[in-house]
C-alpha cells in the first residue's frame, strides 16, 4: 500500500488471467480416475463482455464496466506511453513523470491528491511499464465524481515544479537502487534484455538507466507531458457500482472539453532478426543463481500460435515433464510476453537446486526444450494447464481491479473484449500437435538468448558481465 509508484514489469503473459465462455469439461474425480464422459458445465458468460466502449470527440476512449457487488468504483486512466517510446538518453522519463503526476497541479497542490483519496477511505497507485502508464483509484461509489475531477485535472494542469522534481528524482533513484541495482534478478533481467534487443528501444529499462536519471531535467518532463498526456492518447476505464448512462454525462463534463492534440509520429521499434544464439553471463552478489532462456517470437505470428504459446508457458510453469529438470531446479517459471507493443517473447527461467551446477541445470532445460520439439508432450499436462486457466478465470473475478485492469490493457493493445475472449477460447482449443508445432517453429537456438546469473557471495565484491555468441 505504501508504495505508490511500484513499477509493474511488463513481462510474462499478463493476458493469462481470464479464460473464456466456452463450456468446460468438469474434471471431477471418482476414486482417483476421471470420468470417461466429460460433464458439460453450465455456460459461463465472460464478465468482460458486459462492457461498453465509446469515444469522446477529443479521442478519449471510455470503457465502462458495471459491477454492483459492492458500493465501490475503480477508475483507471491509461496513457499509451512507456519505456518503449523513450529515446536514448531519456530512459525512465515516463516513469519519472508518473511520480510527478502526484506532485501537484495548479488546482491540487502536492500531497493533496493522495490526501483527498485517503480522506475518502480510497486507495490509489500508478504503474509504468514498457508499453503504457496507468493510474488507478478505488473509491466509495458515491465519490466517483471526485475521481473524475482529480484525473481530468492532472491530464491538463500538472505543475512540474523544479524543486519538487529535484526531490522526486532522488526518490526515483532510490527506487532504482532498491529494485534493480541491489536486486540481482532484476539487474540480471535488465542486462539480458539489453542482449535480446541490442538495437531498439525494447531494451529500455522502465525505471531508466542511472546515468539518464542523473541528467534528467524538469524541462524534459514538461515536454514529455505536453507531447503524450492528451485525451487522444488515453483510455478511461470505470468499473464498479455506477449507472453507465449517468456516468457518461459526468465523464463528458470532466473530460469532454480537454482539447486533443497532434501526437508525435512514432515508429514501431524494429530489432534486426537474430541470426545466431547468444549468451550472456552475469556475476552478481545474489542468494541464488538463475538460468534464463529467452526466445524472440516474430511479429505477425498467427493468433492460433500465440494462443498455443500462452498455453505452453502455463504448462511449463506448473508441471515438470522431465525428472532431470525437476531434480536440477528449485523453481521453474515460463512466461509468454504477449500482447506487446514490441515483439512477443517466450521465456523459460529456472533456479538451480542445491546440488545442481549451473551447467547441469542448463542442460536439463535444454533437454526439456528438445522434448517439446519431439513427441514428448503429455496430454495430461496440456489438460491440466487448460483446466488451471479455466479455474483461474473464476478466481480472478474476485477482484474488481483485475477486471478493470484487463479491460484497460486489452483496449490499449487495440483488442475488443470479444477478440480477447476469442483468444482465451483459442487457448482451450490448443492441441498437443499445436504445442509441438509452435515449439519447433519458434523455440529454436538461433532466436534464443541464454542468460546465466552466477550468484556471488552477498558480502564480497564481484561484478562482471560477459557476452559471447554461440557458434
Amino acid at each position: 500500500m505504501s508504495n505508490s509508484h511500484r513499477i509493474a514489469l511488463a513481462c510474462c503473459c499478463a493476458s493469462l488471467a481470464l479464460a473464456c465462455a466456452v463450456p468446460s469439461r468438469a474434471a471431477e474425480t471418482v476414486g482417483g480416475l476421471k470420468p470417461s464422459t466429460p460433464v458439460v458445465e453450465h455456460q459461463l458468460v465472460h464478465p468482460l463482455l458486459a462492457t461498453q466502449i465509446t469515444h469522446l470527440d477529443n479521442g478519449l476512449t471510455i470503457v465502462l464496466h458495471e459491477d454492483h457487488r459492492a458500493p465501490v468504483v475503480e477508475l483507471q486512466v491509461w496513457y499509451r506511453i512507456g519505456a518503449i517510446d523513450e529515446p536514448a538518453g531519456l530512459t525512465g522519463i515516463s516513469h519519472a513523470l508518473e511520480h510527478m503526476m502526484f506532485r501537484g497541479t495548479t488546482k491540487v497542490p502536492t500531497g493533496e491528491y493522495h490526501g483527498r483519496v485517503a480522506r475518502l477511505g480510497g486507495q490509489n497507485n500508478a504503474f509504468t511499464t514498457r508499453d503504457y502508464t496507468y493510474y488507478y483509484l478505488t473509491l466509495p461509489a458515491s465519490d466517483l465524481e471526485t475521481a473524475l475531477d482529480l484525473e481530468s485535472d492532472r491530464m491538463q494542469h500538472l505543475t512540474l515544479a523544479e524543486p519538487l522534481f529535484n526531490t522526486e528524482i532522488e526518490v526515483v533513484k532510490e527506487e532504482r537502487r532498491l529494485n534493480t541495482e541491489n536486486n540481482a534478478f532484476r539487474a540480471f533481467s535488465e542486462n539480458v534484455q539489453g542482449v535480446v534487443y541490442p538495437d531498439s528501444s525494447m531494451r529500455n529499462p522502465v525505471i531508466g538507466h542511472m546515468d539518464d536519471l542523473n541528467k534528467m531535467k524538469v524541462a524534459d518532463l514538461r515536454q514529455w507531458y505536453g507531447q503524450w498526456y492528451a485525451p487522444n492518447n488515453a483510455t478511461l476505464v470505470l468499473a464498479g457500482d455506477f449507472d453507465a448512462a449517468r456516468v457518461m454525462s459526468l465523464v463528458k463534463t470532466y473530460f469532454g472539453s480537454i482539447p486533443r492534440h497532434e501526437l508525435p509520429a512514432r515508429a514501431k521499434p524494429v530489432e534486426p532478426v537474430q541470426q545466431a544464439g547468444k549468451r550472456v553471463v552475469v556475476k552478481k552478489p545474489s542468494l541464488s543463481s538463475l538460468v534464463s532462456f529467452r526466445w524472440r517470437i516474430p511479429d505477425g505470428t498467427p493468433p492460433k500460435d500465440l494462443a498455443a504459446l500462452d498455453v505452453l508457458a502455463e504448462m511449463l510453469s506448473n508441471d515438470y515433464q522431465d525428472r532431470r529438470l525437476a531434480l536440477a531446479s528449485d523453481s521453474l517459471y515460463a512466461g509468454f510476453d504477449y500482447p506487446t507493443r514490441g515483439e512477443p517473447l517466450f521465456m523459460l527461467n529456472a533456479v538451480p537446486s542445491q546440488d545442481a551446477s549451473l551447467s547441469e541445470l542448463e542442460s536439463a532445460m535444454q533437454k526439456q526444450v528438445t522434448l517439446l520439439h519431439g513427441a514428448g508432450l503429455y496430454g495430461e499436462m496440456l489438460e491440466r494447464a487448460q483446466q488451471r486457466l479455466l479455474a483461474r478465470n473464476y478466481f480472478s473475478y474476485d477482484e474488481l481491479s483485475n477486471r478493470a485492469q484487463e479491460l484497460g490493457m486489452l483496449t490499449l493493445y487495440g483488442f475488443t473484449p470479444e477478440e480477447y475472449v476469442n483468444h482465451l477460447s483459442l487457448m482451450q482449443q490448443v492441441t498437443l500437435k499445436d504445442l509441438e508445432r509452435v515449439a519447433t517453429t519458434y523455440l529454436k537456438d538461433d532466436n534464443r538468448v541464454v542468460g546465466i546469473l552466477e550468484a556471488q557471495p552477498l558480502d564480497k565484491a564481484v561484478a562482471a558481465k560477459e557476452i559471447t555468441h554461440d557458434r
Partner: protein
Amino acid sequence: MTAKHWLFAGIALCWAAGAAAFPVVQQWQTANGVPVYLVERHDLPVIDLRIDVDAGESRSPAGTPGLATMTLYGLMDKDFETNELRTPYQLLTDTGNQYGVDLRRDRASILLRVVSTRGPMTMVSTLAKQMADAKYPFEYFKYRRDAVVGQLPENPAKSSTERNLSLALYGDHPLANLDRRTPDTVKSVGNSAARGFYRSFYVPGNLIVTLVGDVSRADAEKMANLLTEHLPKGDAAAPLPPVPLSASSVEAAPQRLVRQKNQSSIELAQLLPIDRKSPDMAAIMLGNYMLGSSGFQSRLMRELREKRGLTYDVSSSLDILRGSAMLSIDISTRSEQEQQALQLLHDELARFTRDGPTEAEVAEAKDRYLRSMSFWGSTNQALLGLVANLGYYKLPLDYYDQLAARIEKLNAADIKAAWQRHVDPTRFRIAIEGPEPAKPATDATPAAIAASAP
C-alpha cells in the same frame, strides 16, 4: 450488503459516506469441538477454505526448528495404493483448484480455493483424508526436505535484518524457532518425527476452519465435519510461555550485516506486551497508522520521502500475535546517507512518543482509518484472512465492529498515553544490511572513535 450488521450508531454515522458493511459471520462447532467460521457470498462460483492450526514453528520442540515446517509441507504426500493414479495434491490441483500452505511463527495454515460448481465436496474429501491420516512417506519427505534445505540460510542472524532482530528480541522463546531453521536443523528432521508432530498438534483442540464464498451453511457443515471428524485425538497445545520483553530493555548497538550494496536497508524493532485483546491496542494501531503505516499520509513518508527524497519507501508495521506484538520500521536509502536517515527515524519516533499527535491529526486519521475499514474484506481472499483471525485469536464475532468503535472514541491524549506506556523510542533494536561503513578518517577525534567501538 446490509449496513445493519455494523452495530454501533456512532460508527454508522461516520461510515454513511459510502462504507460497506462487514459481512455477517456464522459460527458453530463441529461435534468434536472445532470452531467453524463461515461467510456466505454467492456472487462468484468460488469457495475459499482455510484451516488454521496451532502448529506453527513455535511448536517445534527445542532443538528441532523446521519440524513444524516439514509437517505442514508434507501433509498431502501419500504413497499410491492399488488403483490410485494420482497423488492427493494432483487430485486437488489438476482441475485448476488451488492448494497452498502458509507456515508462520505462531500458526500453520492450509488454504484451498475451489470452483463451487466443480465438485467441491470431492476436493474437501481428498483434503480430509490426508488431514485424518497423513503418513509422510520417506521418498516424498526427502524430496521436500531437500527443497526446504536449499532455501535456508546457514547463519540466520547474518541473513536478514528481519531474522536478526527476531532472534535478538525473542531470545530463547519458541516464537523465534522460525528464524532458527538452518539447513542442518532441517536435515535432522525425519519423517517419523513429522508423523509424531502431526499426531500431537493436528488435533481438534488446535484447529479452526474458515470458509468464505459460494457455499451454503449445510454444505459448509458437511465440509467441516469431513475435515475434522477423523483427526488424530489429543489435547490442545498448552499456551506458549510469556514472551521475554527484557531484550527490548537493553540498548544495543546496531547490528551490521555486510553486503555488497550501494543502498542500506535499515530495520528497527521492539516487542510490545500487548495483543488484540489489550485495551491499548486500538490506540497503538491508530498511532502506528499515523506514524508509518498509512502510505503517503504517514509522518515517516512525509518527512523522509516527500520532503527530503531520502527513500522510495519507509513504513512501520505491527505484527500482532498472542500476548505480544512487534512494532517495526523499515527503510532503504543510499548508503552514504544511512546515518542521516537513521537519525531522522529516531527523531520522528521520539517526537511522536513525546508529544503525541495533535487533535486535528487524530480526527483526520480516525476518519480515514474508519473509511478504509469499509474496504476490508472486499474480496473473498481478504475476508478469509480477517475471519480466520477471529477464530485463531479467539476474538468475538463483532470484533471488527468493536475495533471501529474503539478507534472512533480515541483522542490525542489516549494515543500519546498508550504510546508512552508501551513504546520506548530509545530502545529499538536496529539491524542494517549494507556496505561496510567508511573507515573513520585518520584525524578522527577520540570521541568519534569511542562512539564507533562496540
